[in-house]
């Protein structure tokens, strides 16, 4: 048990590291959107989603059977999130960040030696995404931005559910899903 916790902590730590470097420090878009428009926060989320797309490709590679097919579905959903949040940035007159080459992300991901590693990483990743969108609700100024964040938060929570099922856990274990274990 101790070994598993340590291993998970290591995987989670690596995941947090890559996600922080890919999303949290992204600057506001150059030029037009004014401070307080939500553009900076939305751009951080786009960067985080780009990293998630790459992460889910890596997770899919480490899984097989039903797990791999679900991972591919989740990756497609993350791509849709990239497009949707990028559109919100463009609506504000900003330029959303592009994704990095897959090889760059791969260097920052934890080594996924088996399906269990992949599912631990996936769990931490989806919790981080749920948390990001719920946090964004408080800071996004426009109702349509908050609606989009809420809809995507719900989808990320569903993705987390699927990861839980693949890990042999119930789909739903908490009355308040905050993105923190």
């Amino acid at each position, binding site marked *: 048990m101790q070994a598993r916790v340590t291993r998970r902590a290591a995987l989670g730590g690596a995941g947090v590291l890559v996600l922080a470097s890919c999303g949290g420090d992204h600057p506001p878009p150059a030029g037009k959107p004014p401070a307080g428009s939500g553009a900076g926060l939305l751009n951080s989320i786009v960067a985080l989603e780009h990293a998630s797309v790459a992460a889910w490709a890596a997770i899919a590679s480490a899984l097989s059977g039903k797990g791999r097919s679900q991972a591919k579905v989740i990756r497609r959903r993350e791509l849709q999130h990239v497009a949707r949040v990028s559109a919100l940035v463009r609506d504000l007159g900003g330029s959303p960040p592009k994704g990095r080459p897959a090889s760059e992300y791969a260097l920052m991901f934890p080594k996924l030696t088996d399906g269990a590693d992949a599912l631990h990483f996936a769990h931490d990743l989806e919790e981080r995404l749920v948390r990001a969108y*719920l946090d964004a609700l408080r800071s996004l100024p426009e109702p349509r931005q908050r*609606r989009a964040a809420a809809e995507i938060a719900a989808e990320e929570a*569903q993705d987390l559910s699927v990861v839980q099922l693949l890990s042999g856990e*119930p789909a739903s274990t908490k*009355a*308040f899903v905050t993105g923190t274990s």
Partner: protein
Amino acid sequence: MSVTRRQIVAAAVGAAAVPAGPAAAQATGADGLERLLALEHRLESAYGAALDQGVIDPVLGRSLSGQEREHVRGVEVALETLGRRPPRLRVTPPRRAALAGRPAFARFALELETEAVAGYVEVLGGLDAPGLLQPLGSIMTSAAQHQVALRRVLAEPLLAVRG
């Protein structure tokens, strides 16, 4: 009191200290929350009835029913924060057809959960009470996970991809 429940109450107290938004927006948000409260009561009642009738797996049913009870309390606290007393609601029990078997009940409950998620999205978009957005969002994300649990019962695809 669980940590999450404590978070809800703490957030609600914080929200009360935040300057209120336009009165009309607050009223609209509170109206939306009242509709969600009615829906959460219906869900709690539905899972209870399904357990009584044996049309849901008991472990799943008890878990979802307990979570709905916490959602009801969370929405009540949010309403109180907005200065509105939670209404006493007369809950309509599920139609007989909804309790005809496990698939029928799962379909019925999935429709209610889907309605709840959509309702939370609307409220979260329009509510002018920053301290309540995250706690209400965490109830919405729980409802979204209930959708997955119910789709599994129905042997349907667990996740939808648009387009």
